[in-house]
Structures are given as structure tokens and as C-alpha cells.
């Protein structure tokens, strides 16, 4: 994603032991140079990671009609990446880009992958649309405010992680 999503994702990853959670694979929107730079900085001392650039399912402000086509295009182009790249754990935090990625991992690695959705700290009263779409399919959905977990059954508040 860009901006807030990337910043939050890197905050989540920072305390993790990268010798245990290794190797790491990143999926970044191909037009998102900001995120690529942040992530290269984050991983500057490491060599056990890979980066895939994926087409955006939808640009900000794009019409919903043309979004159908860009979504289809991204679904088609992402499939071979997912096919090639088996993972044990998939962490997503909400940019539209993550929907096709989750979709294909659910299909291709059905029982063999844990998908964890982490909702943004900015979502205080309601879940994001991406979360609504994905939450019935992922292994766990984490929210950042206890009242959200109370409001939406099936979501979990484990404490302050962001």
C-alpha cells in the first residue's frame, strides 16, 4: 500500500525476530515508490527478503466501472506470483492491493497458509471495506481498539500493537 498502510506494516514488523520470521516476501503496488524506499531502508541490514511489485487493483479516485477491469488485470497478473511463492504466514493490513493476493493464496494454499488481517489504528468506530470483504476468509482479524472487537464478532483485540 502507500503512506499509512506501509508505515503501520513496518511498525508491526519492527519488533519481530527476523531470524525466526524468515525469509520475508513483500508485495508492493508497482507505482508505490515511497513504500519501496521505506521497505528497502527497513531491510537494509538483511538479505533474506524478496520484493514483488503488483499492479494496483484500483487507483485512488478511479471510477468503479473501470475498476472492474483493473481488478481483473491485477488478479491475472498476481496469480503466477502467488503460484511461485509459497508462504506459511500472510500478513495484510488493508490496501486494495491485498484483496487479489489474499484471494489467490486462499485458493492455491487453502489449508497451508495463515492469513492475518491487521486493521488500521485509524479505524475506531467501523471496519474498512477491505476488512469487511476479507474477514470471513482470513485466519484472524486484529483490530486496534477494544470497542471494535466488541462491535464486530470474530475480530480480536490483543492489546496495543501499534
Amino acid at each position, binding site marked *: 500500500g502507500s503512506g499509512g498502510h506501509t508505515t503501520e506494516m513496518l511498525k508491526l514488523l519492527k519488533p519481530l525476530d527476523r531470524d525466526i520470521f524468515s525469509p520475508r516476501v513483500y508485495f508492493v503496488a508497482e507505482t508505490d515508490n515511497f513504500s519501496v524506499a521505506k521497505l528497502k531502508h527497513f531491510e537494509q541490514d538483511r538479505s533474506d527478503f524478496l520484493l514483488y511489485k503488483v499492479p494496483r487493483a484500483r487507483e485512488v479516485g478511479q471510477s468503479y466501472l473501470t475498476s472492474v477491469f483493473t481488478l481483473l488485470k491485477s488478479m491475472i497478473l498476481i496469480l503466477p506470483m502467488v503460484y511461485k511463492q509459497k508462504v506459511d504466514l500472510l500478513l495484510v493490513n488493508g490496501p486494495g492491493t491485498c484483496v487479489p493476493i489474499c484471494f489467490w493464496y486462499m485458493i492455491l494454499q487453502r489449508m497451508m497458509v495463515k492469513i492475518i488481517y491487521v486493521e488500521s489504528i485509524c479505524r*475506531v468506530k467501523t471496519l474498512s471495506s477491505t476488512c469487511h470483504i476479507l474477514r470471513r476468509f482470513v485466519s484472524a482479524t486484529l483490530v486496534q481498539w477494544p470497542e471494535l472487537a466488541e462491535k464486530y464478532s470474530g475480530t480480536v483485540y490483543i492489546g496495543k*500493537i501499534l
Partner: protein
Amino acid sequence: MGACQLPCTVYDYKPSLQQDMEDADLVISHAGAGTCLEVLELKKDLVVVVNDSLMGNHQIELAEKLAEEGYLEFATLSTLQSILDSFHSKERQRFPKPDSNLFSNFLRQQLKLT
């Protein structure tokens, strides 16, 4: 509006406001989520200002929540003066740091790693 007696430095854009925020005793800002978190993580006093017409807008949900929890002061253009007049650097709630093991333990549990 009267003539401003306050010494001001004005600029269009800086790549990072980190230094200015670190030097500040008080930050008065818009209610963007990123800014709120950045300032609170630096443990600075923060007053956020929003347009009256934006009240209840989901974009300021986080700022509203942080104000409710006592981490910052929330003002509109009409209330800003009185908020600043009565602002004390009182013992505000400090924004807690994340628990560094929580997420890791959760993931390890999910993956059934010891």
C-alpha cells in the same frame, strides 16, 4: 483579526518535521492520523484543530478518540482561543508505547511455533 505579535517562521514544505516537533513545547496541528501519532510518540503536548464542518467526519475519528482518551486537546476554529487560554501542560495521559512482544507471540501462536 488583530496584527500577530507572535514571531513566526513559515515554510511551504520540509521533507521531515521531526526536528521542529522535537524542539516544540506545544504542537498545534490539523487532525491527520499520521501527524497525531507522530507528535504523541514524541511525547509532545498537542492541540488539533478541525473545521467545524468536518466534525463527525470519519477522517478525524482517530483524533477524536485520542482526545476522548485524554492524549490530546481537540479544538475547532471557534474554540481554539479558549482551549489555548486554558491549556495547562497538565499531566496528560501519555500515549502508551506498543507492547513489543504481543504481536510476535500472537503470530507464533497462530503458526504453532514454541
